[in-house]
């Protein structure tokens, strides 16, 4: 019976929290963009002439097929992260794509049209070196995989292993390359650095070693980077020190030394310090490669050479040229070369590979993005036109991971910004008002100077409004006459303005590659992008909004702090988040490594918030640092505090700012690093508002919340990872005084810990290693029935410790990330947004994570609307805010308040980006989407007319009665 009551209560409580998107709302205010990451391998499907497929494998362990006409994904397979899912090589033959995954762990074959897995084979252990398709008599039947100490041959149609052989002397020889010329033999090439090359010849049928020889090559350190096989099995190597090319026929038994060809004899020279690169082409994997090859002598110098009768002859010199690539269509092989045209554009031309002659009318102009990176890879898709000439399209990859697909004469067919697959941090910035809105807004800002000028000002601004309205009407009229298709509602920066409820914002995204993006949150259109060059791959970014759009005519201002992990030095990049332009403001030089930043609520005379940067000598730099700011800082210095957490030493330290912008250490908490390690620290979000200062109890008294804005949640994990002894600790520390307000330990628990710290609560998730399940735990802090001080909050004057309540729940799924919704005034109830590894984002009402949930239902708890305690946390499909639009590898969720109290903007990012709105308490402040305006207004008008008519009738009747 009790259970029945509990269940009833739960289902009733679920009834009004359940919310999901209706079918007709799909895509109305949400969008998703799918990315693949930085392309490492790209192959065009040349199997048939009409094929639109482009197969790519990326550094994000994604294997995908793109539509080469539109750039959209046909299909995408996302493998495990890290080295386990790393794609080592991608080979393609006909309809099959063969992939080696996880440093030679798995060999997979994919069907390229639908992306289905044909077969998968687990390979023997050993680090992967190379793989190649092995053909016999113009037909590819096998794939050979070279490991560090073994070679195996697999059947291409079934994946079954035909044979595996150990390589001779694999402890001294580094086997690196594998080659098969289609004549029943597989050559394995190894090198003993600075000594000799080893060539082992295997028979395809049974793996028998046919021949083994070693050739002197004292200059060689690595085969992979400097050698290639051309023509009918001739090994070609380039060496920078001796300035020579070396050739060696693989099959000849008598030649004991490589033949040296000095580059000087060809009138060539390798740029100093540049490792020459050889590029050969092999149109058909069952046949030997062509005898033509590219030699890159310097970053912008390529030369097309040909090996003929043992002699190397230059066919064409491309100087300057950035990139060169071969492509084959049918029987014809062409070479595309990208050369600089002027400062902003490059031209790509097509040359026939066998003669080096330029094809006429094949120029593609590639306009380099001034805010992008330099091109670094060129992929060419050649095809035969109807008149039997060769046409081509190119895909250019740039340093900022952008893919641009071009066709003649330079039209950009599509573009993919793959840098967005790795968003590091983001912010949402309000859009500016339109000119008219700003005009009205500006009127209140202007100083009043007499009655008449004020009236005139008001009149003039209203005249401008009228003008704008008329222009708008005219535009509507003009657009209405045009056919619907020609009216494009493209979003551009110029027409961008804040909407009525501030639901449309600018998403400023910082990616790991150092490219910044400005994205319209409504449509997902990229409005601006800016590539910051010379960003180290492991840099740390911190994005700070210093000035919002609220201070017209001052432009909004964002500051990006970039810290290089290796040198520790940081730099500031200041820009306008709406237009993406770099600001002209002078940026302070940061000669010392920056440890942390602090954004003060203090503003300078231009309404920019002051950013303090603390360096490794605990000195503080202010930005901006005008006289006004320094004066304000001096006045408020005694109330500005820093905390720094050094995870390696397990030390938390607090500092107070002095008037001379130095700091003094005021507290220190040491959490012994041998026992437990500090994993994460979080304060509260600066833009969070708490509307209600307490909670109403069942007896209508108030339990006041402990709302300490300086509270920090510190999560630690034990260094001992044994499942019986591991634990997760949480410390609530006051960041000003260093006082430990509360500490809790979860025994037999393990990370990774995800947590949210907001209002007066902390929610954290950990893995319970005893029961093998994920658990949620919630901590809530209350001051009690009375407020200690209701007007001001000072951490220095808190004599009473808060009451702490805690409860834990079982969560039936692993978790990728955790975030809480945020609204303008904090009236709306809170939801937790839980990113699941499946790609779904669960909107979990905070109501379920309430430590006051009673085990026994009482009158008072019912009065409070508390759900009876149940250990299991439900996951309901209708709570997935992204229905079937899953976000692959969700890494972070960003929430921002909108102008509507009911609405919170959510952006989930990972491999994909998903933007939506959530309404934790439903849309209580706006009419619903499906509000029946027609019905309501027709009823209204109907009633109005009925009233009019009946009034008239009543009058007539009264008159008649009076006459009677």
């Amino acid at each position: 019976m009790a259970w029945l009551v509990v269940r009833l209560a739960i289902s009733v409580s679920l009834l009004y929290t359940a919310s999901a998107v209706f079918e007709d709302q799909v895509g109305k205010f949400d969008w998703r963009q799918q990315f693949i990451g930085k392309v490492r391998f790209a192959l065009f499907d040349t199997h048939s002439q009409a094929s639109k497929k482009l197969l790519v494998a990326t550094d994000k362990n994604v294997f995908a097929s793109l539509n080469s006409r539109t750039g959209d994904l046909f299909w995408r397979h996302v493998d495990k992260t890290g080295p386990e899912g790393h794609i080592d090589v991608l080979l393609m033959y006909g309809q099959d794509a063969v992939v080696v995954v996880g440093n030679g762990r798995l060999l997979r074959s994919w069907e390229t049209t639908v992306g289905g897995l044909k077969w998968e084979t687990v390979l023997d252990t050993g680090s992967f070196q190379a793989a190649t398709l092995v053909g016999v008599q113009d037909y590819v039947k096998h794939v050979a995989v070279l490991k560090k100490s073994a070679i195996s041959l697999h059947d291409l149609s079934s994946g079954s292993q035909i044979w595996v052989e150990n390589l001779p002397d694999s402890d001294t020889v580094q086997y690196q390359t594998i080659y098969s010329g289609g004549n029943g033999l597989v050559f394995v090439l190894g090198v003993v650095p600075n000594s000799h090359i080893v060539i082992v010849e295997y028979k395809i049928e049974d793996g028998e070693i046919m021949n083994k020889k070693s050739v002197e090559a004292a200059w060689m350190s690595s085969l992979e980077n400097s050698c290639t096989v051309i023509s009918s099995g001739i090994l070609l190597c380039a060496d920078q020190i001796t300035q020579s090319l070396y050739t060696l026929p693989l099959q000849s038994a008598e030649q004991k030394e490589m033949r040296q060809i000095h580059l000087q004899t060809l009138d060539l020279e390798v740029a100093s310090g540049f490792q020459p690169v050889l590029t050969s082409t092999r149109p058909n994997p069952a046949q030997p490669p062509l005898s033509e090859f590219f030699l890159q002598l310097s970053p912008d110098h390529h030369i097309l050479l040909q090996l003929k009768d043992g002699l190397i002859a230059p066919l064409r010199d491309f100087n300057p040229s950035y990139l060169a690539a071969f492509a084959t269509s049918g029987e014809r092989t062409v070479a595309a070369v990208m050369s600089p045209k002027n400062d902003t554009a490059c031209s790509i031309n097509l040359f026939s590979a066998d003669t080096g002659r330029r094809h006429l009318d094949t120029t593609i102009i590639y306009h380099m993005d001034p805010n992008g990176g330099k091109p670094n890879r060129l992929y060419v898709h050649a095809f035969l036109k109807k008149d039997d000439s060769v046409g081509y399209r190119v895909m250019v990859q740039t340093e900022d991971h952008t893919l641009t697909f071009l066709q003649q004469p330079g039209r950009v067919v599509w573009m993919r910004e793959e840098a967005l697959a790795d968003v590091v941090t983001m912010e949402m910035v309000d859009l500016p008002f339109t000119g008219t809105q700003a005009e009205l807004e500006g009127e209140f800002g202007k100083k009043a100077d007499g009655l008449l000028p004020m009236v005139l000002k008001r009149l003039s601004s209203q005249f401008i409004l009228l003008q704008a309205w008329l222009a708008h009407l005219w535009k509507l009229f003009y657009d209405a006459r045009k056919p619907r298709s020609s009216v494009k509602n493209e979003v551009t920066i110029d027409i961008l303005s804040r909407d009525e409820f501030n639901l449309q914002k600018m998403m400023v995204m910082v990616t790991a590659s150092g490219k910044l993006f400005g994205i319209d949150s409504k449509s997902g259109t990229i409005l601006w992008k800016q590539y910051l060059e010379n960003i180290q791959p492991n840099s740390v970014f911190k994005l700070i909004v210093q000035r919002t759009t609220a201070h017209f005519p001052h432009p909004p201002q964002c500051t990006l702090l970039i810290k290089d992990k290796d040198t520790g030095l940081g730099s500031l990049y200041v820009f306008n988040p709406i237009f993406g332009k770099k600001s002209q403001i002078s940026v302070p030089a940061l000669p010392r490594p920056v440890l942390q930043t602090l954004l003060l609520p203090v503003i300078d005379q231009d309404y920019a918030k002051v950013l303090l940067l603390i360096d490794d000598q605990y000195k503080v730099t202010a930005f901006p640092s005008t006289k006004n700011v320094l004066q304000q800082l001096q006045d408020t210095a005694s109330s500005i505090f820093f905390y720094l957490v050094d995870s390696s030493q397990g030390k938390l330290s607090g500092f107070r700012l002095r008037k001379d912008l130095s700091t003094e250490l005021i507290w220190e908490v040491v959490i012994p690093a041998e026992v437990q390690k500090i994993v994460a620290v979080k304060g509260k979000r600066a833009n969070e508002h708490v509307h209600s200062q307490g909670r109403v109890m069942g007896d209508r008294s108030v339990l006041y919340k402990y709302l300490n804005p300086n509270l920090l949640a510190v999560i630690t994990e034990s260094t001992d990872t044994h499942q019986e002894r591991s634990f997760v600790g949480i410390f609530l520390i006051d960041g000003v005084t260093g006082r430990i307000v509360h500490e809790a330990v979860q025994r037999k628990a393990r990370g990774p810990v995800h947590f949210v710290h907001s209002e007066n609560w902390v929610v954290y998730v950990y893995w319970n290693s005893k029961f093998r399940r994920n658990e949620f735990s919630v901590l809530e802090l209350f001051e009690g029935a009375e407020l200690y001080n209701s007007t001001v909050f000072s951490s220095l004057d808190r004599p009473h410790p808060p009451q702490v309540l805690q409860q834990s729940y079982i969560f039936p799924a692993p978790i990728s990330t955790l975030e809480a919704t945020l609204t303008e005034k904090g009236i709306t109830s809170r939801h937790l947004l839980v990113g699941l590894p499946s790609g779904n984002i669960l909107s979990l009402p905070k109501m379920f994570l309430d430590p006051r949930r009673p085990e026994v239902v009482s009158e008072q708890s019912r009065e409070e609307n508390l759900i009876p305690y149940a250990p299991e946390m439900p996951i309901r499909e209708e709570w997935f805010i992204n229905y079937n639009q899953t976000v692959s590898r969700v890494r972070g969720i960003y929430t921002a308040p909108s102008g509507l109290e009911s609405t919170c903007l959510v952006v989930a990012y990972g491999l994909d980006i998903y933007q939506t709105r959530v309404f934790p308490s439903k849309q209580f402040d706006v009419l619903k989407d499906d509000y029946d305006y027609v019905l309501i207004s027709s009823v209204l008008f109907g009633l109005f007319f009925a009233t009019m008519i009946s009034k008239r009738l009543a009058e007539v009747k009264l008159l008649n009665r009076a006459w009677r």
Partner: protein
Amino acid sequence: MSRGRKVSNAVLKRRSDVMTSPGAQGGGALATRGGATAKRMKWALELSLGNSSRNRGDRQSKDGDVMYPVGYSDKPVPDTSVQEADRNLVEKRCWDVALGPLKQIPMNLFIMYMSGNTISIFPIMMVCMMAWRPIQALMSMSATFKLLESSSQQWLQGLVYLVGNLLGSALAIYKCQSMGLLPTHSSDWLAFIEPPQRLEIMGGGMVM
């Protein structure tokens, strides 16, 4: 009073009878001309006596009436001077008025008990009515005083009336209180508490 009204009715009848004497011809003509319509007339004057064919029979019996002048009544006129019994009546009436609100209290208590403490439309309506009636009565206090003017115990009655109404409104307030409609708890003022101002500014984080 009713007696007086009867008297004047009788006078009117007489008068109409007297007025009938001259010009009966016209009336007669009118009556004969109309035929059926004559009967539907709203009023008619009979100017000649005895000529009328309608009620000659009963007229004949009251022949002597004609002799009385206009306004003459053969019945005695009642004595309208205030008597002791009437004064008592007024007093009683005034006490009725003064005690009215007090008399309603048991009824209200019963309604209160019946409607319960749940907040729904009917109890709310009851409470509103219960609260509104005494307030209305208190507002029209001067009118009630005027009513009680004739009583000798005017002030006492007024006081009783006032106390009764106050009791009624107190009852309504008690009902509101028991229904939880009065902002008497600290939770009712929770929304008005401003978030405290923070005195310290703090920031930082993990060493970057």
